[in-house]
């Protein structure tokens, strides 16, 4: 089991487990403990198996760390180094704190996923009961190739709708005065995530600077002091790690603008057929050059730009997933599809839905070749000829016609007794009506027996699937699987079937 080279992240000596001195190792994927003087681990847990860690309260004499596993078992380590016990424990705890969530997510996800599959698929659940619970094959083997099959398509179906970002998340960080000429901003993990999702450049800066250059606190302090946060303040050119963010935002905004809009109906540039030449017209456009704008006007337009940008970013963050498949089905850079969009938009805009007769959703006309089959559904084929409803109607008409023209032939009437016996024979239950009472096999066998048989069948099928998936046998593992327990399993399945059969025979007799 032990992988050849595992990265050891932390080694803590003098750790007691079950009153035995030893060394605790924290590795990339598991935590392990080995007694002193021996080079093998007596305790080894994958991080994925650990549900949580517990530590002894600060004041206690024994400094301990307990790991609780998903199975409910627990392991307790006692840090026994007199001088540095607390420090050792803290180091181990900190590291675990970082490591566990990573694996936990994975483990939880898998468990959840298995659970979901079993709940959604009763056949699979039965199979699981038949094979795993009755210990024909192990759970791991059962899931081994099932999860990977489903991984691809469930990721689509299980795609939970992501929670969007509140547009006002910055408003929620109202600063409070701390009483001595300073401001306090309260940040929560949610707000930080909102900031990161809305402003990827800030996230990038965070990645670059924390924790190498700045502590987290310093980073956010600078963020709130920056001109980037207070966009109405004009950038005074101070050295500020966020000035680059502003520049990048500006760039992003520009590129968005340059790309133009997809919907031709909102494109203000193409709105007007610019027919007035330069120099004509009543009012010349007011000079928009920045040179003669006042500082206030500049800051005002900065605010406006900021709001547009902020809203666009929030909107984009909320729908980042759907970005590739844009709403109207064509990508920005392909001019090729442009006309249809325009056409559709135009059609939409001239549509008067209430003037048209067809108001409901458009339906496809049903084209039936045999309308009676549609009306009655499939009818089990009898040994007799198949009669359509048209035939029946015809024959009813025919009979009615005959009845209308019926003239009793009084010379050839039946006797009373023969007539009544003929009626009896034609009544339900009579001799001549037997054909209608044919029983299908599925009605003769009780449903529980059928169910059992079905389970045995699927279970055997699953085992056979495992069996055939071993071919071609090109690894020793497969060979072992084949000759070892698969054979055993098939044997077991066979005996199960046999047991069922005898039980059934017994019951019948």
């Amino acid at each position, binding site marked *: 089991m032990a992988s050849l080279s595992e990265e050891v992240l932390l080694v803590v000596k003098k750790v007691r487990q079950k009153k035995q001195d030893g060394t605790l190792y924290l590795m990339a994927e598991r935590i392990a403990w080995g007694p002193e003087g021996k080079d093998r681990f007596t305790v080894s847990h994958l991080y994925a198996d650990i549900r949580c860690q517990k530590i002894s309260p600060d004041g206690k004499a024994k400094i301990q760390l307990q790991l609780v596993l998903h199975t409910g078992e627990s392991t307790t380590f006692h840090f026994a180094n007199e001088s540095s016990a607390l420090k050792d424990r803290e180091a181990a705890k900190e590291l675990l704190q970082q490591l566990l969530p990573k694996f936990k997510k994975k483990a939880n996800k898998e468990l959840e996923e298995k659970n979901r599959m079993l709940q959604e698929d009763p056949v699979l659940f039965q199979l699981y009961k038949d094979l795993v619970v009755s210990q024909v094959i192990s759970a791991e083997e059962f899931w081994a190739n099932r999860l990977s099959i489903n991984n691809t398509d469930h990721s689509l179906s299980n795609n939970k709708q992501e929670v969007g970002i*509140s*547009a*006002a998340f*910055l*408003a929620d960080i109202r600063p409070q005065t701390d009483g001595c000429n300073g401001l306090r901003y309260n940040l929560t993990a949610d707000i930080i995530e909102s900031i990161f999702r809305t402003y990827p450049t800030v996230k990038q800066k965070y990645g670059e600077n924390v924790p190498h250059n700045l502590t987290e606190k310093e980073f956010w302090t600078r963020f709130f002091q920056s001109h980037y946060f207070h966009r*109405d303040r004009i950038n005074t050119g101070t050295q500020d790690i966020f000035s680059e963010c502003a520049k990048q935002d500006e760039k992003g*905004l520009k590129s*968005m*603008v340059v790309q*133009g*809009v*997809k*919907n*031709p*109906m*909102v*494109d*203000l*540039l193409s*709105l*007007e*057929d*610019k*027919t*007035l030449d*330069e*120099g*004509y*017209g*009543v*009012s*010349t456009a*007011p*000079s928009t050059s920045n040179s*003669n704008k006042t500082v*206030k*006007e500049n800051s*005002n*337009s900065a*605010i*406006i*730009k900021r*709001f*547009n940008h902020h*809203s*666009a970013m*929030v*909107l984009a963050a909320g*729908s980042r997933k759907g970005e590739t498949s844009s709403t109207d089905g064509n990508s920005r850079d392909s001019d090729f599809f442009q006309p249809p969009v*325009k056409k559709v938009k*135009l059609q939409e*805009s*001239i549509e*008067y*839905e*209430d*003037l*048209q*007769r067809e*108001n409901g959703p458009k339906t496809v006309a049903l084209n039936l070749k045999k309308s009676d089959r549609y009306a009655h559904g499939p009818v089990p084929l009898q040994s007799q000829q198949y009669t359509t409803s048209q035939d029946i109607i015809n024959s009813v008409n025919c009979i009615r016609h005959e009845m209308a023209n019926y003239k009793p032939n009084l010379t050839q009437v039946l006797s009373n007794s023969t007539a009544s016996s003929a009626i009896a024979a034609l009544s339900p239950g009579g001799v001549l009506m037997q054909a209608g009472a044919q029983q299908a096999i599925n009605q003769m066998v009780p449903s529980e027996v059928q169910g059992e048989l079905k389970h045995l069948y699927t279970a055997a099928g699953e085992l056979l699937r495992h069996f055939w998936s071993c071919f071609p046998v090109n690894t020793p593992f497969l060979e072992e699987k084949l000759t070892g327990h698969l054979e055993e399993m098939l044997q077991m399945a066979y005996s199960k079937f046999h047991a069922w059969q005898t039980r059934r025979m017994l019951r019948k007799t």
Partner: protein
Amino acid sequence: MKINIEGLLVYFPYDYIYPEQYSYMLELKRTLDAKGHGVLEMPSGTGKTISLLSLIVAYQRAFPLEVTKLIYCSRTVPEIEKVVEELRKLMEFYSKETGESSNFLALALSSRKNLCIHPEILHANIVVYSYHYLLDPKIADLVSKELAKKSVVVFDEAHNIDNVCIDSMSVNITRRTLDRCQNNVDTLQNTIRNIKETDAAKLKEEYRRLVEGLKEANVARETDVYMANPVLPDEILQEAVPGSIRTAEHFVGFMRRFLEYLKARLRVHHVVQESAPQFLKDVFDKVCIDRKPLRFCAERLRSLLRTLEIADITDFSPVTLISNFATLVSTYSQGFTIIIEPFEDRTPTIANPVLHFSCMDPSIAIKPVFERFQSVIITSGTLSPLDIYPRILDFRPVTMASFTMTLARTCLCPLIVGRGNDQVALSSKFETREDFAVIRNYGNLLLEMSAIVPDGIVAFFTSYVYMENIVASWYEQGILENIQRNKLIFIETPDASETSMALEKYQEACENGRGAVLLSVARGKVSEGIDFVHHFGRAVIMFGVPYVYTQSRILKARLEYLRDQFQIRENDFLTFDAMRHAAQCVGRAIRGKTDYGLMIFADKRYARADKRGKLPRWIQEHMSDGSLNLTVDETVQLAKHFLRQMAQPFRQEDQLGLSLLTLEQLESEEILQKITQIAHQA
């Protein structure tokens, strides 16, 4: 359906019809019968365009000799494309019903970039293009002058037609224009010198032609082949080009002299305003240029450019501009004013002299259209008050009518907010523009609305500067942050592509359910060209009354002119102008009977009769006395009530017989009587 409009069989490509569409077609037919002009107002979203097209096409088919062509003018490129789409629908209906493919030729000129196709215009049955192709003499002369007299001209979205007319006749000259013009003149001189050496015969030929004068054009005009051109007055057609500018060199020299004069005029230190005759007198006094050769300038330059076989005329647009100015200023002694401003009002220290030659009389540009074509229809969703248009455009309509929107449910809700919750009067008037209390209450109104209105809210401000100031102040007061808790915020900027992007994002936010607020400006591009149908605009808030900036000298001159020439009082015109823009803004939200929206007028001045009375009838009639001076809280209550009502299901059956008719209903006597009441004779 096929409808009978006073004996005319009209193919209408829908199964149902709105009563007002029927009335509209009726009035339209009467106008065409009378071979006169008409002014028709009908709310947008009631199928104005398809009614127009159906009736006129039917008319053309029934009386091919009476009406030979439909010239449909609209304002924006998307509008033009929509007309074409509707026309296509109509034609498909025709070929489906009659079984024959129609031999109608329709032509759309959607953009000047793909211009055109001159001979085809003459043969098309329907031409769809922008206003400028008919109203701007520079383009009309190229594109439209040969259009047949027996055409019907439709100006759709015509509420701003006077401004288009004025724009097409006004000229602004800056130092830069003059410098570039100087370069043009130099180039011309060099080209002439070169040609003289290589091909002197060509110049002689031109000279000969100019002696004969513009007889050809005159003959054409007299025989009604051409439409008149306001830049080419009748008188000069009968005369030869004056000797002083007949040879190419002389003309170039003449232009040089005129240019020097203009340069000198731009060297002023104070504002100068003068009339055209004053200007001409000064030209004569200073540089001895007569009125007569000036009038020939535009035509003379055109001839020269043709003779020199200059391919790219756009390079010569500055000198063309100056020559057009010369012709205009010497042709019209009235209707224009000349204002020379040495600097912009906002920046008195930076010299930037501009000579504004402004047209004040929109009838000058549109006169040839009214004179030439037998029927001209002015139509829009907002043309109130109807009688002002015939006055300022100087024509006599045979029909004037305003149609309302028949509604099975009241899907528009106009509310006038006059007070804040603290009883502060809300107004954008100059004195209280900076008032914090007003700004705060405006913010409060938007905030409250953002909490109760689903999807999209559009807010309009009276000007860009005003919006900037309010936004800044809302930002400081934290109002915008609170609005962001409810909706995203997008704001119009002076940059069109930035605004386009904001608009698209705004629509995206309305579409995905997050909801958004768009802050925009009346008289801006958004207010004129973008529709906010259904959830893209469930409420429009008009902050203030969108008066035009009254300090402009050009506007003052125009107001004076209106008063003197048309007896229209300054205040009446300003209010009319403000109210048509307000109506445009709030009308953006209602684009049909299945649509619904709140129209919030946030200024107590809207409650006054002189303002309210200038709104279109279809908005006015839904204003009750109880909704004229509301507080913000009361507005919220009414809005909530309205929105709850509108959220109820609304089906086609609810409309039938009231605001939607089947063919049978249309033919019943009772309904026809009801319909006749709808048309409102102005």
